[in-house]
């Protein structure tokens, strides 16, 4: 194990200056904060302003509606708890503790994301602290969501986390995770490596909400392995301004009949540079994939929506959909769908990409039913961005409604 770790460190060191394949290149500080945060007895003890931003990222303090919670502030894990009713069904802990507890976890460590992918994965390996380990035990049906929040509370600070999520055979669960900053924070960066292992017949829905600050850089790195009859749904919401995000999760459908769906909702504001997408590799027989993106570009935002489907099996089927609306003459939007078939002539891959304005005829039609112009635009924008994400906390639904209602004023 030590030897394996040495190899990882060596690889990471060599990749410390390796640029990423996509996104603007960042010169990152290598400094690590020594600040230690005190653990919490209860999520209710969170500072009021922190509580508010956490809520907007889907983290609720009423834990009766959750099966378990994880909270990391800066580099310190301040809360981790599995509700009693879910003991024996779910494990939640800091990644370092999980590696100590489960020696087998080493086999999952940097398996779906290469440690030397780029300078950001390298920094996570060499300087990383914290991140969560969430495991849903075999056969467990977890009816209430598991929640986690990763928060930065200091301007100029950084977070480098490594998360591992294992949905064991036949398990079912939903995770809502928020990545956010406290209200007065201006700049900083977040690097997050997440590796998902969806075992035979397991079903996992993972909803990630990103709420950052205007001068913040984010580089998530995600890999997902889905085994036979496994199912993984990834919902991603970006609703606040950010300086830059580049993310390109890769899902490998290895097992027969395994499936994945990416739903991405992006609201580009300010001078946000957003380069988002996903790669689905369909390897098993009968595998299916969907990658659905909706983006709104306002102000001077610059959005790239990527997506790639890669089929290796004749009985694979997948669809990619990138749709965007540009609501500003200063915003830029690119939709880049890619299909790739490797030696599987019967594989069925399709894509659809469209960038356009709000349809004036549709607005007029709704107005002929008595809706005011802003109500009509808001209804269209809301419907446009709604890709069927279920189970969002009410507060997030409300936030989405408010955002669309405000946005309609910008369109008119």
């Amino acid at each position: 194990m030590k030897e394996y770790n040495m190899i990882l460190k060596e690889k990471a060191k060599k990749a410390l200056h390796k640029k990423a394949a996509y996104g603007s290149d960042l010169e990152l500080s290598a400094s690590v904060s020594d600040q230690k945060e005190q653990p919490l007895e209860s999520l209710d003890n969170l500072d009021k302003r922190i509580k508010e931003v956490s809520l907007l990222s889907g983290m609720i303090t009423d834990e009766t509606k959750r099966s378990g919670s994880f909270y990391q502030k800066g580099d310190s894990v301040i809360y981790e708890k599995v509700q009693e009713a879910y003991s024996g069904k779910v494990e939640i802990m800091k990644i370092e503790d999980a590696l100590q507890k489960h020696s087998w976890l080493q086999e999952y460590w940097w398996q779906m994301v290469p440690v030397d992918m780029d300078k950001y994965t390298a920094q996570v390996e060499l300087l990383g602290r914290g991140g969560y380990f969430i495991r849903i035990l075999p056969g467990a049906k977890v009816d209430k969501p598991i929640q986690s929040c990763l928060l930065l509370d200091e301007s100029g600070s950084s977070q480098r986390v490594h998360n591992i999520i294992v949905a064991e055979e036949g398990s079912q669960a939903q995770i809502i995770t928020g990545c956010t900053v406290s209200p007065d924070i201006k700049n900083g960066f977040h690097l997050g490596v997440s590796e998902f292992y969806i075992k035979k017949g397991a079903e996992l829905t993972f909803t990630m909400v990103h709420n950052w600050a205007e001068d913040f850089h984010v580089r998530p790195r995600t890999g997902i392995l889905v085994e036979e009859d496994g199912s993984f749904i990834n919902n991603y919401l970006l609703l606040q301004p950010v300086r830059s995000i580049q993310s390109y999760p890769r899902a490998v459908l290895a097992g027969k009949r395994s499936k994945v769906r990416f739903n991405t909702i992006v609201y580009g504001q300010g001078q946000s540079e957003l380069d988002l997408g996903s790669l689905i590799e369909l390897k098993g027989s009968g595998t299916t994939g969907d990658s659905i993106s909706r983006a709104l570009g306002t102000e001077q935002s610059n959005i790239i929506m990527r997506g790639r489907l890669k089929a290796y099996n004749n009985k694979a089927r997948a669809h990619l959909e990138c749709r965007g609306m540009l609501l500003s003459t200063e915003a830029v939007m690119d939709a880049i769908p890619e299909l790739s078939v490797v030696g599987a002539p019967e594989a069925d891959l399709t894509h659809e990409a469209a960038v356009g304005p709000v349809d004036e005829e549709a607005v007029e039609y709704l107005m002929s039913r008595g809706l005011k112009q802003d109500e009509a635009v808001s209804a269209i924008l809301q419907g446009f961005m709604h890709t069927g994400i279920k189970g969002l906390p009410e507060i997030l639904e409300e936030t989405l409604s408010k955002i669309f209602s405000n946005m309609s004023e910008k369109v008119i």
Partner: protein
Amino acid sequence: MLEIIDLKVKAGQETILKGISLKIPKGETHILLGPNGSGKTTLLKVIMGMGSFQITGRILFDGEDITDLPLDERARRGIGIAMQKSPVVPEVTLGGLLEMIQEKHGNGKLEERIEALNCHYLLKRGVNENFSGGEMKRSEMLQLIAQNPKFVLVDEPESGVDLDNIVVIGEALKSLLKPPREIDKSRSALVITHTGRIMEYLNADKGYVLVGGQIVCSGNPWDLFEEVNKHGFEGCLTCGRCSHEGV
């Protein structure tokens, strides 16, 4: 209820309507006949306040001049339209739109009407998204019923639909204009028809023939329809039985 005075409409350089005047009193249904391109749909759109046209003349509704009133204000005053070709709005479900309409106009429970118009299975779909001709017309009727307008504009409700759907749509229009229990006799309508089939369901009071942007004939709608069937619309220009003035 509705009065149009010397309405002239241009789209860019093209003159579409050349001085239309007509009156539709409370509780009456009037029929509009005319060849393709004569300006029938434009007239309905202009009354509703849709599209970008240059307009002169006046449109009065319940005595109020609504010529410059925004579209949504007209809808809230009680004017409703069922379009011949309505746009696809994939972002809004039919069920969602009906809820919004009901919030605005509050026309009680719609379950029976949804049933009668066989629209259950369409409620979760985007408005007009992959709807057939019949589905689109039934959805239009349902929206109108939810809207509960005082004045109804209907553009070729029978076009592109099969006979079964004409019956469903015709019955819905009939009950909208003349409710069975005659609770509300005040509803008026202007209906465009090409085939005349929809007239079997309407107790229409008056008809107009619109040719080249002008009303060239008016009178009993069945008589007009018969004349048009016999002599075509061109016959209306030469028959001389009705004056173009004051129709």
